[in-house]
């Protein structure tokens, strides 16, 4: 293939392979923890690190790594103190990081190449051999840590309070996760860009979430999807001469919309098929209860049972219980429960 004849493309594709694999492996824990924007915040902080690198003529990948990891540790400490809400702490990090980066970069002597766009949105021509080596080390570290601590990171992200109650080192694990996010942000500096890395952490996980049945499955699927969109987006950007980061993210979002549409279609046709068998509702084959497999759902002031996406309201009469239809609902995420009928 012609595209592989160029050294810069080989390096760009290698970098995209690594970031595509690693970003979702870390991002899925952020999604689970409902802290999706942490990657974004640390991307902003990394920009300050880049600026320091440019000003002092050191490799910006290294200074960005230091800045992002410091920012990550700082924000976990602030969150653990609990005085400031995580929200405000993130906002300060966001704006402080980007403002610091922009101001510092403006101080760089004229004539020095400071291609801000390439850092923010990715560019395929920028990956150096040194960068590839650094990225390989970061990738190895992140993959090892996720392999070793993945179950604990899951536990803390899923139910922090429970983890604390049973004595898991919550602050340490949260800090490790934040540091992994920081490392991933730096990994993104060349082909994805600091402003877009968060998307590559979150979107593949969001797609996997729609398809997987277990957390492990979701993790593997997200990494696979991340790898595919990252490498193919980088290749496409070579032919279209568009910024690689933007291209990768658009590709990921297109995939997300496609899968969402497919899953919705599947649910809707399943629902319609079910509707046609309306007899079920006249004489429901079982009493809904704790064990029937239909999730119970709070509906206004009473409890209904989620029957493949529409609600059955238990309604006692002289003749026994029957079920009123209370329409469709969108409260539970997954109508994937057994139909039970």
């Amino acid at each position, binding site marked *: 293939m012609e595209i592989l004849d160029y050294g810069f493309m080989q390096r760009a594709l290698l970098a995209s392979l690594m970031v595509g694999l690693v970003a979702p492996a870390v991002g*899925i824990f952020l*999604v*689970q923890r*409902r802290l999706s924007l942490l990657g974004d915040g640390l991307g902003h902080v990394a920009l300050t690190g880049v600026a320091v690198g440019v000003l002092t003529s050191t490799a910006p990948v290294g200074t960005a790594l230091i800045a992002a990891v410091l920012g990550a540790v700082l924000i976990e400490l602030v969150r653990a103190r609990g005085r400031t809400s995580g929200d405000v702490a993130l906002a300060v990090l966001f704006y402080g990081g980007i403002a610091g980066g922009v101001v510092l970069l403006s101080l760089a002597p004229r004539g020095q190449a400071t291609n801000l766009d390439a850092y923010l949105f990715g560019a395929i021509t920028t990956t150096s051999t040194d960068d590839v080596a650094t990225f390989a080390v970061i990738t190895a570290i992140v993959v090892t840590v996720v392999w070793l*601590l993945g*179950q*604990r990171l*899951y*536990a803390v*992200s*899923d*139910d922090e*309070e*429970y*983890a*604390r*109650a*049973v*004595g*898991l*080192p919550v602050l340490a694990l949260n800090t490790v996760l934040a540091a992994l996010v920081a490392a991933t942000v730096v990994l993104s500096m060349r082909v994805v860009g600091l402003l877009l890395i968060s998307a590559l952490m979150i979107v593949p*996980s969001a797609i*996997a*979430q729609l398809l*997987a*049945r*277990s*957390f*492990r*499955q*979701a993790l593997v699927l997200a990494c696979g999807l991340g790898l595919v969109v990252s490498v193919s987006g980088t290749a496409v950007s070579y032919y279209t001469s568009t910024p690689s980061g933007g291209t990768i993210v658009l590709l990921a979002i297109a995939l997300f919309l496609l899968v969402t549409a497919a899953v919705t279609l599947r649910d809707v046709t399943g629902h319609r098929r079910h509707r046609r068998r309306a007899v079920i509702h006249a004489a429901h084959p079982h*009493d*809904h*209860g*704790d*064990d029937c*497999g*239909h*999730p*119970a*759902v*709070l509906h206004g*002031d*009473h*409890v209904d*049972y989620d029957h493949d996406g529409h609600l059955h*309201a*238990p*309604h*006692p*009469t*002289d003749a*026994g*219980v029957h079920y*009123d239809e209370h329409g469709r609902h969108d409260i*539970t*995420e*997954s109508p*994937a*429960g057994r139909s039970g009928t």
Partner: protein
Amino acid sequence: MAIRLRGASIGYGDVPILRDADLTVQRGEAVAVLGSNGSGKTTLVRGVLGLASVLSGVVEVLGHPVGHRGERGRVGYVPQRHTVSGAVPATVREVVGVGRLARLGLFGRPRAADRAAVIDAVAAVGLTDRLKDPVAALSGGQQRRVLVARALAAEPDLLIMDEPMAGVDTASQETLARVLAAVSAGGTTLVVVTHEIGALSGVLTRAVVADHGSIAYDGPLAGALPFSTDGHHHRDDQPMPGGPGPGLDQVHLARSPHRAAGGR
């Protein structure tokens, strides 16, 4: 000693909710924590678990001050929360597996014995056939049982449950009572916060009644009944087929317009 409170004030931020409480629970005891809504039951157990601040006095768990992580892997906890909520799907086995993690240290991998403990815990709550199903596909009551299994998987020395009976149908309450009886017979200390003693009256022997942030009664379960009036009258006279479901107690359901308009 499983739990020791001496002049303990427990609260949130720097506001004490439970004030100057003394309480000793010996290993192997089975204690009910009773009291009306807002009396401080949850705050009491959260203090013991290190989730609420100890503002003054002493709180010791399994012989260590509450901040100490040493024996925490030996604690099981069922929070006062009705469902499992995670953005990413997880199976019953994965959620219950978390209950075992704290015993393994920071890097320990689960061994055969750990996997067996997880399977046994799921079996104890009667969900073996749902082991590989995503938790989100289970009913509210089943999700509640998943959280019980998570606590059991630790094979805990101290098992703390916050309102495990709320919103669970009678059959599941009896299942839970059987599980707790077995756990208690195995030597585990039980602390169960509850509104309704119901099926648990055969398991729990001692009662602690909280009232407006202090302990109003501590003694045999039978002697606690005059204290446990909380404005919520039990509705045993109005059985609800299929159970009331989660997130709602029976009083609210009985008052709902939908129900009141019944008999069509």
